[in-house]
């Protein structure tokens, strides 16, 4: 279909400290005991997209991810891992790999996306309108019941209105305005020309940018070349394209101009007539109306380009792993409400317990739980709505509620863990009590200590 896919697997995000580290880049964070990147790769694989470019920030993480991909997808996907220097931003990353891009359209996917929306739908919408960019938006994921939502580290990530302000036309097909929630202070400025061309505009704040874009390659490369200062796709490139859609500075019709030059006058005349025929027949979008000018005779043809959106239906699941809150939410959703994404088969009790896991007597594992390979649990434990990774050793009388425990974690007897995230190789000594905490890899929690709402990492 002449599409190329770029997965931006990113490096280590500051927002996710202390969970991420040099050994565990963001894209390898486990979601239901699988790296989060695998969700994207499998989504693409389902859509028959097997030639991928994975862009990773930083040389050392590049090796980790490449190793993991080559192990997990050796014969299923053809993945090219490209490393770019750190801190170049998403636009910079694309600029660095621009020579790899050859297809007419590029699908850019963020590596931290967990969703079940077919990227094909976005690509199809892109093609249908012949747009320069198509962005996928989804409605803000409904977080679980309030009591479980509040148990996460909410006070940290709580930023009211951190979602985008998005302006759409009435058919919900075109993107007229976009601003990230953080940038908006009191008022937003909408261009008059766009507003007068489209007539009515719908402004929504309940949409989330899924960071899945389809770009026209020529346009993307041109913008990246011209605007060397652009660092982020979302904050620079997309708003730029949206703003300039009615006074396009990018050369879209270069090829056409050449064609016309070669042919005789009469023939090109016919071509014009033909294109007019085609234009008149299809229901014109406001872009075309604007390009024609107020009386149908524009003095010089105005250059336009189209920015489209694809709104995912509400029934679909879509989330991005970009904060600790999101991390625990996604983990909970993937084994809970959106369990079809996880790809695991759930038992009758609505949980997944690896056959090699060992459970002590009187230990209960509730619904919406996952217990990884080779983990051992002592007696009288109780696990509710939690994910426990591989090869964990958990003593007796331990309570785990609403938490994520990664691999090789040792938990002593009588611990209580609530709403926390515990990274790999952490050691919890006896009777430790954790509530709403994040613990970095390799940390040792001393016996009997009690933490609430803290993030702990090895110095």
């Amino acid at each position: 279909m002449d599409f190329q896919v770029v997965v931006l697997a990113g490096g280590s995000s500051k927002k996710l400290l202390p969970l991420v580290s040099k050994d565990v880049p963001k894209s390898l964070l486990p979601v239901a005991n699988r790296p989060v990147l695998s969700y994207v790769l499998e989504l693409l694989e389902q859509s028959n997209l097997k030639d991928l470019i994975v862009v990773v920030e930083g040389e050392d993480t590049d090796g980790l991810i490449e190793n993991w991909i080559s192990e997990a997808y050796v014969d299923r996907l053809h993945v090219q891992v490209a490393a770019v220097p750190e801190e170049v931003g998403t636009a910079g990353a694309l600029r660095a790999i621009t020579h790899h891009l050859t297809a007419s359209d590029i699908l850019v996917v963020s590596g931290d996306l967990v969703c079940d929306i077919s990227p094909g739908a976005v690509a199809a919408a892109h093609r249908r309108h012949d747009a320069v960019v198509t962005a996928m938006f989804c409605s803000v994921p409904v977080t679980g019941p309030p009591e479980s939502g509040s148990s996460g580290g909410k006070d940290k990530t709580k930023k009211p209105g951190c979602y985008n302000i998005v302006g759409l036309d009435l058919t919900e097909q075109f993107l007229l305005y976009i601003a990230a929630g953080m940038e908006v202070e009191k008022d937003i400025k909408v261009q008059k020309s766009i507003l007068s061309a489209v007539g009515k505009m719908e402004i929504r704040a309940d949409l989330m940018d899924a960071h899945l874009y389809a770009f026209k390659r020529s346009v993307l490369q041109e913008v990246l070349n011209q605007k060397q200062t652009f660092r982020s796709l979302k904050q620079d490139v997309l708003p730029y394209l949206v703003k300039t859609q009615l006074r396009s500075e990018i050369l879209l019709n270069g090829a056409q101009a050449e064609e016309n030059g070669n042919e005789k006058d009469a023939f090109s005349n016919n071509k014009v007539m033909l294109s007019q025929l085609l234009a008149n027949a299809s229901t014109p979008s406001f872009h075309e109306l604007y390009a024609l000018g107020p009386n149908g005779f524009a003095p010089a043809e105005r250059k336009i380009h189209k920015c489209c959106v694809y709104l995912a239906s509400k029934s679909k699941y879509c989330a991005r792993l970009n904060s600790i809150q999101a991390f625990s939410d996604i983990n909970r959703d993937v084994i809970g409400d959106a369990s079809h994404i996880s790809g695991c088969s759930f038992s009758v009790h609505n949980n997944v317990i690896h056959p090699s896991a060992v459970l002590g007597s009187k230990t209960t594992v509730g619904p919406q739980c996952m217990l990884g390979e080779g983990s051992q649990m002592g007696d009288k434990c109780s696990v509710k709505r939690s994910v426990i990774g591989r090869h964990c050793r958990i003593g007796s009388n331990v309570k785990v509620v609403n938490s994520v425990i990664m691999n090789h974690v040792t938990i002593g007897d009588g611990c209580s863990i609530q709403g926390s995230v515990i990274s790999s190789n952490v050691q919890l000594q006896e009777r430790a009590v954790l509530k709403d905490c994040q613990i970095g890899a390799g940390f040792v929690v001393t016996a009997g200590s009690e933490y609430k709402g803290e993030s702990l990492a090895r110095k």
Partner: protein
Amino acid sequence: MDPRRPSRVIDPKVRKVGFFTPGPPPDRTRSGPATTTPTQSPISNSLSPVMIPPARHASDNLSRAVGVPVPVASQLHAHPPVDSLQVESYTPSDSVFTASPTRSPSSRIGLDGEFSEDSINWMKRSNSGRFAPALPDMKQSIETLIDESKGDVVEEPLQKNSKPLKAKTTKAERRALQEAQRAAKATAKVAEGNKSGATSGMSAPAQTSKPVKQPNQKKTGPPLASSTIVPEKKGGDKPPEKDRKKDMPPPRMQFDDKSRVEKAKKRSVTKQTEARNRVELFKHLPQYERGNQLFDLESKFFQLDHVHPAVYKVGLQFLAGDIMWSNTRCIAMLQALQKVIEDYSSPPEKTLARDLTAKINSSVSFLIECRPLSISMGNAIRFLKARIAKITLAQTESEAKTSLCSDIDRYINEKIVLADKVIVRHAVTKIRDGDVLLTYGSSSLVEMILLHAHELRRQFRVVVVDSRPNLEGQQLLRRLIEKGFSCTYTHINAISYIMHEVTRIFLGAASVLSNGTIYSTVGTACIAMVAHAHHVPVLVCCESYKFHERVQLDSICSNELGDPDAIAKVPGRTNNCLDDWAGKENLQLLNLAYDVTPSDYVSMIVTEYGMIPPTSVPVIVREYGREHLLI
């Protein structure tokens, strides 16, 4: 004999056979005056198109009839009227072989003409069917001869002739003929079992029944094509007929046939959910739930590897309704196919012609899944396939591809763009100062005509009639108002009120069928009929590439069903009464896309070949349509 003449003229079967003087058809000469007086009542110039000779037959007969000596059994059935008729129709040739008052220059003359006198005499002597295998290619004609000599089948040749001669025979003769037909049928039935044994003497009658039957089918075939009955192919087809069969549309899929629908679904690319609550009368037409289909197609974007991106895009636009009218759909499709051809490279060990045809076929079937093809698109595809078939092995692949692409360009250019220009020039002569023109919906061609007339500074007013659910007239209206036209906009339910002030009606058409019927957007028939009642001339503007040889008498057997949701929803209203219509068992919605306007209500059809009465459509179809001539 003379008093029978007129009846012969009217008989439609005779018309099809075409045993008439091959001179310039009176119709065409008639069309001259018709163009100058478009306002005259349509009935007055509805000349029967009988006199138009099917070109191929006439030429075949003329060229080949000369050498035909079919002397057998002539004395048995020497009908004087028969002879005289033939003298009449084959004047140049008949004189040559008057010695044998032949009946053979029938419609099947093509091969008979190749007979050498020797072989026939020889066969006559032998008096049996043993020679059939020896001359396999002449099997049919031989067999007819054999039968003749057998004596009991004497009626066969008569029957062959009977078609053209029917009108001329007396009552008794016709009766004899009827009986003969029955007898032939009976023999055919008897011999059906041992069809395979072509060599045995027994099979001779069975075989003979074929050539007898086939002419019948042939003659009735083309007009019946629309009613989905297509004669099954038979082995003994002769080349010219084969060609004709190829042109015939394949049997249309009947969507009320459950098992077939299931089969088609398995083949289809997208998941098609049948629309619920379908109208009983229209269950034979495909109808799917649009929303689901679009969604499904979109999400399968990357799975459809075999579909070319350009074709996919066009299909998606068809399905979403971004591209609507037949002209533009046709252009969009052709341009997409052009891209397919450009990107095509034939795999090793496959010939380009065959493999590319397969490729085009798969693209077309994808487009059909998105939306049924319009007749204009069908014609264009036929043209393209004919072009592909003509590619020889001598051409290199790139040569073939460039020639095909330029063919497509020329087709678009000459059949659509230039044709439009010519039509505009013709039609504009009918617009006079002070006219009030009415148009329905939005036809690109009518719009061009109006614009051109405006440029010529004619003073006229335009009434744009529109209808739900598409409301395409609004777009036309918007463009006209921008240009400074004085317009009136109304909906079709007010047509009888507005008709009083209208002096002329310009309509577009999706297709023109060979009986002069206009196949167009639903509502067109209503406009034409009201106009007829008010004695307002109706001018239909249509490029000749949209003409089709089929005949359709109603808009039921072949039509297209739109999305029923489109008529259930009123735009801008938040809660519709019919919001949950699908759940109501006793409610069925019908959103027809096309209707059929009988030719009686059409005063004139404006094509690039001139302005013609609806009765002259077959001429255009035959003379210009068959070979897909480029101008």
